[in-house]
C-alpha cells in the first residue's frame, strides 16, 4: 500500500498548492515529497512489493525507481534555490512545482506499470506534463522547442501504440498485455507480428529515449528547458522509455528473436553515437552540447543491450551513472547560465576564476561523462569494449572508440574552454547559495563510490535485472 | 711499463716537435728558412709567464675552460694506444670514453666561446659544434666495424686487427687512413677545413673561438690542440703499423710515421687552399660514405665468405 503515497501525495499537495500559491510552501512541499519519495523507494528497494495488479516493483524496474528517487531528491534540493532566486511570478512558480510533482508521479507510473497499455499511457502523460515545464521560460525558442517536442514525441508515441496493437495482434491467443502473461506464454506469439511490434515500439519509445535517427527533438527541448528540468528529462525521462524498450526486448529474447532486436539496437546505437559525435565537435551552445551527449549515452546503452552478455550489465551500470552524471552536469549548467546569462560557449571563459566551485563541478561532471575513472562510466564503457572484443566485433570496437574519441574532443573543447582562461571582466564574482552546489556534489560522490567499489546490493540489483531480462 | 713511460713522454713533448716539423715544411715550400723547430714550446712558456685580459662579459666558464680542454686532451691521449699498441688505460669500449672525453672538452670550448658574448666567437662555436657532430659517429662506426671483424672491442684490439695480410685488409686500412686523416684535419682544424694562420674571423672555426683568451689560458689551449694532433695521428700510425714487431722497431716506425704525418700536413697546408665554408660539410660528409663502405666491406667479407 505504501506505493499509493507516491501517487496520492502529489495530487493532494498540488491541489493544496494551487489554492494557496505561496513560494515558500511550493518549495517545502516539493522537498517533502522528494524526501518521502526517497525514503519509500529505499524501503521498496530492499523489500519489493506489489501495489495493485497494474503497479509493481520487480527486479527490473527497481533500478529505475532508485535512480528516479535519488535524482528527483537532488533536483528538489536544487529547486529550492533555483526558483526563489529567479524572477518568476507566483503563478508560474506554483505551476512549476505542481507539474514537477506530477512529472515525478508519471515517471513512477512508467516505471512501476506492469502493462503495456498503462506504460504507454504514462509515457504519453509525461510528454504532456513536461510540455509546460519545457516551455517554462516562455520565450520564442522555448515555444519552438516545446512544439517540436510535443509533436515529434506524440507521433513517436503513436507509433509505439501501433507497435502495441501489433503485439496484441501477435499474441491473439493470450489476449492480455500484462508483461507477466506475455512472458509466460511467449510460445504463442506470432514472430512476424512480434518483430513488427518491436520495430514500432523501438522507434516510438526510441523517439522519447533519444535514439538516432528519431532523436531530433532532444537537443531543442533540453537546451530550452530550465536546467533542473533538463536534468530530469535527461536523467529520468529517457530512462523511462528505455524501460519500455527493455520490456518488449525481453519478449523478443524469449521468442529467440533477439538477434534481430540486437541488430536494430546496435544500428540505432551507433547512429546515435555518430549523430552525437558530428554535432558535439561543432556546437556552440553548451546546453545543446549536453543534450547531444545524452543522445550519445543513450546510444551507448542501446549498444550495450545490443551486444548482450556483459553488455547488459554494462548498460544498466551506464544507465545509473549517466543519469546521475548528466543531472549533475545539467544542474551545473544551470549555475553557469545563472552566473553568465548566456548559453553560448564562446562567450564564457574562466568559470574557475569566477565561481570556483562551479568550475570544479563542471569539469568533474565532464570527466564523469567521458568515462574517466574513478567515475563508473569508465567501468561500463570498459565492459562494453570488453564485450565487443569477446564477441569478436573488432570493427565495432574500432568505430566505437573513434566516435567516443571525437566526442571527448568535442565536449572537452567546449568544457575546458569555459573552465579555464581569463575571467570575464564584466561579470562580477558571483556567490551562489549552498543549495545549488549540494546536489551535484552529492551525485558526484555517489558516482565516485560506485566507480571505485560497486556496493554489493547494487551489484545484485543489476545482476537480478540482467537475469530477469 | 716502458711503453707507458714512453707514451707519456711522447704525449707531452712530441707535440712541439710535431708543430715544428709542420712549420718547417711550410717554410720549405714557401722558400723561407722558418722558425726554430721548438718555437711553439718557447711560445708556450712565454704565454705561461704572461698576465691575462679577461672580457667583462665572461663568467667562470671562460676561465676554467682552457684547463678543462687541456685535461681532456691529455686524458684522451692516455687512452689512445701509442708505442707498440700500448695504451695506459685499456678496457672494453675504451674508445667510447676517448670520444666522449674529447667531446667534453669541446663542450666547454663552445661554452667559453659563447661566454664572451662576441658574435664572432659564437660563429666559430656553432661551426665547431656542427662539424664535430658530423665526425663523431663516423669515428665510432669505423672503429666498431673493425672491431666486429675480430670480436675486439677495445682500442688496442681494434687497431691491431687490421694487418696487411690480404687484399681486403689493405683496402680497409687505406680507407680507414683516409677517414681518420679527414677526422684529424677536422678535429684539429687544419687546412682544408680551417686555416690556423689566417685571421679573417668570419671564415674561421677554431681560432675565432679563442680570440679572447690570453696568457696561460691561451697557452693551455694551444698546447691542448697540439697534443690533440699527436693523439689523432697516433691512431693513424697504429692503423698502418704491422703487429708483432720488436719493441724498438715498433717505436721507431711509430715515430717515423708521426713525423711523416707532420710532413704530410705541412705539404697539404702549403699546396691546398682552404675550402669555402659551404663546401666544408660536404668534405666532412665524405667520411660518412667511407664509413658505410668500410661497414659493408666488412659485412661482406664476413658473411660473404671472404674472410
Amino acid at each position, binding site marked *: 500500500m505504501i506505493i499509493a503515497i507516491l501517487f496520492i501525495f502529489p495530487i493532494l499537495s498540488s491541489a493544496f498548492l494551487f489554492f494557496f500559491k505561496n513560494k515558500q510552501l511550493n518549495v517545502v512541499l516539493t522537498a517533502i515529497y522528494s524526501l518521502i519519495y526517497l525514503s519509500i523507494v529505499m524501503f521498496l528497494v530492499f523489500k519489493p512489493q506489489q501495489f495493485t495488479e497494474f503497479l509493481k516493483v520487480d527486479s527490473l524496474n527497481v533500478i529505475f525507481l532508485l535512480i528516479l528517487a535519488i535524482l528527483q531528491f537532488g533536483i528538489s534540493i536544487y529547486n529550492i534555490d533555483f526558483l526563489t532566486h529567479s524572477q518568476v511570478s507566483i503563478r508560474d512558480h506554483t505551476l512549476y512545482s505542481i507539474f514537477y510533482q506530477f512529472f515525478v508521479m508519471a515517471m513512477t507510473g512508467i516505471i512501476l506499470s506492469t502493462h503495456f497499455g498503462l506504460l504507454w499511457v504514462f509515457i504519453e502523460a509525461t510528454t504532456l506534463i513536461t510540455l509546460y515545464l519545457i516551455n517554462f521560460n516562455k520565450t520564442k525558442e522555448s515555444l519552438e522547442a516545446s*512544439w517540436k517536442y510535443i*509533436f*515529434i514525441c506524440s*507521433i513517436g508515441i503513436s*507509433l509505439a501504440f501501433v507497435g502495441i496493437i501489433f503485439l496484441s495482434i501477435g499474441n491473439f491467443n493470450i489476449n492480455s498485455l500484462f508483461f507477466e502473461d506475455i512472458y509466460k506464454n511467449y510460445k504463442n506469439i506470432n514472430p512476424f507480428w512480434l518483430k513488427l511490434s518491436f520495430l514500432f515500439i523501438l522507434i516510438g519509445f526510441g523517439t522519447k529515449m533519444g535514439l538516432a*535517427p*528519431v532523436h*531530433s527533438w532532444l537537443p531543442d527541448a533540453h537546451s530550452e528547458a530550465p536546467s533542473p528540468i533538463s536534468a530530469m528529462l535527461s536523467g529520468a525521462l529517457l530512462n523511462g522509455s528505455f524501460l519500455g524498450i527493455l520490456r518488449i526486448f525481453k519478449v523478443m529474447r524469449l521468442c529467440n528473436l533477439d538477434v534481430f532486436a540486437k541488430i536494430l539496437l546496435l544500428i540505432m546505437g551507433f547512429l546515435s553515437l555518430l549523430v552525437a559525435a*558530428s554535432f558535439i565537435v*561543432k556546437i556552440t551552445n553548451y546546453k545543446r552540447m549536453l543534450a547531444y551527449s545524452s543522445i550519445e549515452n543513450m546510444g551507448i546503452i542501446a549498444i550495450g543491450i545490443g551486444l548482450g552478455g556483459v553488455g547488459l*550489465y554494462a548498460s544498466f551500470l551506464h544507465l545509473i551513472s549517466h543519469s546521475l552524471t548528466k543531472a549533475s552536469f545539467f544542474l551545473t549548467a544551470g549555475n553557469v547560465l545563472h552566473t553568465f546569462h548566456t548559453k553560448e560557449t564562446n562567450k564564457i571563459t574562466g568559470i574557475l576564476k569566477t565561481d570556483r566551485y562551479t568550475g570544479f563541478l563542471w569539469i568533474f561532471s565532464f570527466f564523469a561523462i*567521458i568515462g*574517466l*575513472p*574513478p567515475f563508473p562510466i*569508465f567501468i561500463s564503457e570498459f565492459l562494453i569494449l*570488453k564485450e565487443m*572484443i569477446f564477441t569478436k566485433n573488432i570493427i565495432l570496437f574500432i568505430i566505437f572508440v*573513434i566516435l567516443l574519441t*571525437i566526442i571527448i574532443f568535442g565536449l572537452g573543447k567546449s568544457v*575546458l*574552454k569555459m573552465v*579555464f582562461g581569463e575571467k570575464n571582466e564584466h561579470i562580477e564574482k558571483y556567490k551562489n547559495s549552498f543549495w545549488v552546489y549540494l546536489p551535484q556534489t552529492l551525485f558526484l560522490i555517489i558516482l565516485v563510490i560506485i566507480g571505485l567499489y560497486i556496493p554489493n546490493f547494487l551489484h545484485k540489483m543489476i545482476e537480478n535485472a540482467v537475469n530477469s531480462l | 711499463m716502458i711503453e707507458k713511460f714512453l707514451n707519456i713522454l711522447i704525449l707531452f713533448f712530441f707535440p712541439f716537435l710535431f708543430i715544428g716539423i709542420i712549420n718547417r715544411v711550410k717554410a720549405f715550400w714557401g722558400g723561407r728558412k722558418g722558425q726554430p723547430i721548438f718555437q711553439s714550446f718557447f711560445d708556450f712558456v712565454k704565454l705561461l709567464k704572461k*698576465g691575462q*685580459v*679577461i*672580457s*667583462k662579459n665572461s*663568467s667562470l*666558464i671562460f676561465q676554467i675552460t682552457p684547463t678543462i680542454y687541456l685535461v681532456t686532451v691529455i686524458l684522451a691521449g692516455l687512452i689512445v694506444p701509442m708505442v707498440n699498441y700500448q695504451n695506459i688505460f685499456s*678496457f672494453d*669500449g675504451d674508445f*667510447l*670514453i676517448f670520444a*666522449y*672525453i674529447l*667531446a667534453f672538452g669541446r*663542450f666547454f670550448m663552445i661554452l667559453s666561446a*659563447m*661566454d664572451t*658574448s*662576441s*658574435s*664572432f666567437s659564437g*660563429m666559430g662555436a*656553432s661551426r665547431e*659544434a656542427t662539424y664535430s*657532430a658530423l665526425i*663523431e*659517429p663516423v669515428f*665510432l662506426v669505423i672503429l*666498431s666495424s673493425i*672491431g666486429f671483424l675480430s*670480436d675486439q*672491442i677495445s682500442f688496442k684490439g681494434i687497431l691491431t686487427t687490421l694487418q696487411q695480410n690480404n687484399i681486403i685488409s689493405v683496402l680497409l686500412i687505406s680507407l680507414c687512413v683516409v677517414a681518420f686523416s679527414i677526422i684529424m684535419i677536422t678535429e684539429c682544424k687544419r687546412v682544408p677545413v680551417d686555416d690556423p694562420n689566417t685571421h679573417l674571423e668570419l671564415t674561421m672555426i677554431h681560432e675565432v673561438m679563442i680570440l679572447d683568451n690570453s696568457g*696561460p689560458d691561451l697557452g*693551455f689551449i694551444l698546447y691542448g690542440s697540439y697534443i690533440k694532433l699527436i693523439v689523432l695521428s697516433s691512431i693513424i700510425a697504429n692503423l698502418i703499423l704491422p703487429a708483432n714487431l720488436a719493441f724498438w722497431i715498433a717505436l721507431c716506425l711509430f715515430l717515423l710515421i708521426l713525423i711523416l704525418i707532420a710532413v704530410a700536413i705541412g705539404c697539404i697546408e702549403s699546396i691546398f687552399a682552404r675550402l669555402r665554408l659551404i663546401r666544408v*660539410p660536404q668534405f666532412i660528409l665524405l667520411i660518412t660514405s667511407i664509413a658505410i663502405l668500410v*661497414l659493408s666491406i666488412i*659485412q661482406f667479407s664476413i658473411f660473404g665468405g671472404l674472410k
Partner: protein
Amino acid sequence: MEIFFIGLLIIFCGFILSIFFSEKIKIYIVLFFSLIGIVLTIILPINVILSGKSLNFNLNLNYPIGLASFEIDLLSAFFIVIICMIGFFNIVYNIGYLKEMIKKNISSQNYLFFYGILYLSMILIVCTKNAIIFLILWEIMALSSFFIITLNSENKKSYMSGIVYLIAMHISFIFLSGAFIVLASKSGSFSFDSFKNVFKNDQFLTNILFILFFIGFAIKAEFAPFHYWFPKVYPIAHCGTLSLISSIMIKIGIYGLLRIILLVQMPSIFISYFVLFISLFSCGYGIIYSLMQKNIKNFLTYSSVENIGIIGTGIGIGMLGLSYQNTIISLLGFAGALFHILNHSIFKSILFFGLGNIILKTEHEEIESLGGLTKKMRTTSILFLIGCISVCALPPFNGFISEFIIYNALLNGMKINQNLISIASILSIGVLSFIGSLAIIGFTMLYSVIFLGNPRTIYKEEIKEVNILMLVPMFANVFFVLFIGLFPQFVFSFITRISLSFMSVHSLPLMSYANFVNLLKNISFINIIFLVSFLAIFLIRNIILLNKPIYKYKTWDCGYQGTSLKLQYTAFSFISPFLELIKQFIPLKIIFDKPKGLFPKQSNFGVRIRDFFDYYIVRPFSKFMLFLMNLFSWIQTGNMQLYLLYGLIFLFVAIVVIVGVK
C-alpha cells in the same frame, strides 16, 4: 606489505589535508606528511631490491575487478624507489615554488591535492598485477596530471592544450585496453600472470598485441612518432609540474613496456627490431627537434624524447638478446635501459628545476630573450650546467655511465655472428653517437644562450636567486649525478639484479659479470683522475696567475665599435649551420619581409618550425575526421518535417526488411 600501504596512506593524508588549510600552512603539512610517508613507503622496495624476494598483497574487490593483486617485485621496487626519491625532491621543489607563488598572491588551486593523487597513482601502477586496476590507475594518472598541468596555467590557450592532452591519453588508453581485453579474452582473466600463457602459445598474436601495447605505452612515454601531443601541452605547465611529468611520469610508460616484456618472456626478433628502430628514430627525431625549439620547456621535453629513445634502444637491444638467447647482451641492454631511466629522472629533474627558477624569476620562456643569468643566479647556473653535461652523456657524470652500458651492449651485440644484428648494432652505435653530439650542440646552445653572455632583453625586475627550498632538491640531485658518475659500480650491481629478472636463466656467468664491474671500475677510475687532474691543473694555473696582472676589458670586437645586446649570437643562428644540412626534411616556414624602398623602415625575419608528425600526419588526420563528421551536420536543420522524414525512412526500410526477410 602493510607498512607500504600505511606509507601511501600517510602521503595521501598529507595531500588531502592540503585542501582544508590555508596556503601558508598547507605546504608544510604536505612536506611533513610526505617525508614520513615516503620513508615508510620506500623501506620495503629497498628491501626487495636488496633481498631479491618479491612481496604480495591481495585484495578482493567487487565485480568488474575481482581479485586485485599487488606485487612488489624487483622491477616494481626499482620504479617505486625512483618515484619516491626523485618524486620527493619534486615535492620539495614544488613546495618552494608554491612559496614563491604565495609571495605573489597567486592561489595554488588545490594543485597539491592532484599532485598527491598523481604521485600515489604512479606508485600503485607499478605494483599492480591486475589489468583492470592498471587501466583505472592509468586513467587516474592521466586525469590528475591533466589537473596539475592546467590548473595553475596563466596561458590563454591552456584549454586547447588540455584537450590535446586528454585525447592523447585517451588514445593511449584505447590501445592498452584493447590489447588487455584481447589478452583477457584468450586467458579468461585479467591478472597479469594468466597472460604469460597466451604469449607463450601464440607467436603471431603476441607480435600484434605487443605492437598495440607498445603504441599505448609509447604515447605516454613520448616515443617519437607518438609524441605529437606534448609540444602543445607542456608550454602551459610550470616547470615543477613538468619535472615530475618528464622525469617520472613518462617513465611509467617505459615501466609498462618492461612489464609486458617480462610477461612475453621470449619476444620475437621482429618486435625486438621494431622497438630498436622506433627508439633510434625517436632519439634522432627528439634531439633534432629539440635544437629548433624556441620555448625552453619544449627544448627539454623534446630532449626527453631523445632520452626515452636511448632507454628504448637499451630495451630493444635487451630484447634482441632475449630473442637471440644471448644473456650478456640482454643483461647489458636492460641494465643500460634501467640505468638510464634512473639517470634521466635525476638530471631531467635538475634541468627542469633550473628552468623553473629561471622562468619564475625572469618570466620569459622564449630562449632568444634570455641571457647573462649566470651573474645573477650563480647557484642555479652551476647546477644547471652539471645537468646539461650529464644529459649530453659526457663523462664524468652519470649520463655517460648508462649510455656507456648501452654502447657496451651494442658492442657485444655485434659479437653475435648474425648479419642483421651486427649491422643493426653498428648503425645504432653510429646513431647514438650522432645524437650525442647533436645533444652537445643543443645543450651548449641552451646553456650559453640562457646563462652566458649578456641579457638579450631588459628584465622586468632585479633578478635574484630563488629560495632555498627550490635549491635543495637540485643539490640533492647533483649529488646523485656525481655519485653515480664517479662510482657507478655500486649502483650497477643492483641494477643488474633487476635486469636479470628479465631472463629465464637467473644465473649469469660470474666471469662476465665481474668483467663488467671491472669495466665500470675503470670508468670510475678515469673519471676520478679526470676530476683530480682538472683540479690540480686549475690550481697550478691559478698559482701561475697569482702575481700577474689581470685586466677586465670589453670583449674584443675585431675593431667594430658598436655595442648592442642584439649583436650577440642567437640560438637560431647557433644551430643554423646544422639546420642548413637538414632543412629539406623539416616543415619550415620562413617569414621574411624584405626591407623595401630607398629608406626602408621596418623589416621582419622569423622562422616557424613545425613538428613533422603533427604537421603531416596528425593534423591532416584530425582535419579529415572533422570533415567526416561535418558530412553529417546537415541532419539538424531545424526543420521538423525533415526530422519526421528520417524516422519515416528508417521505419520504412526496417519494415521492408522485416516483411521481405520473413
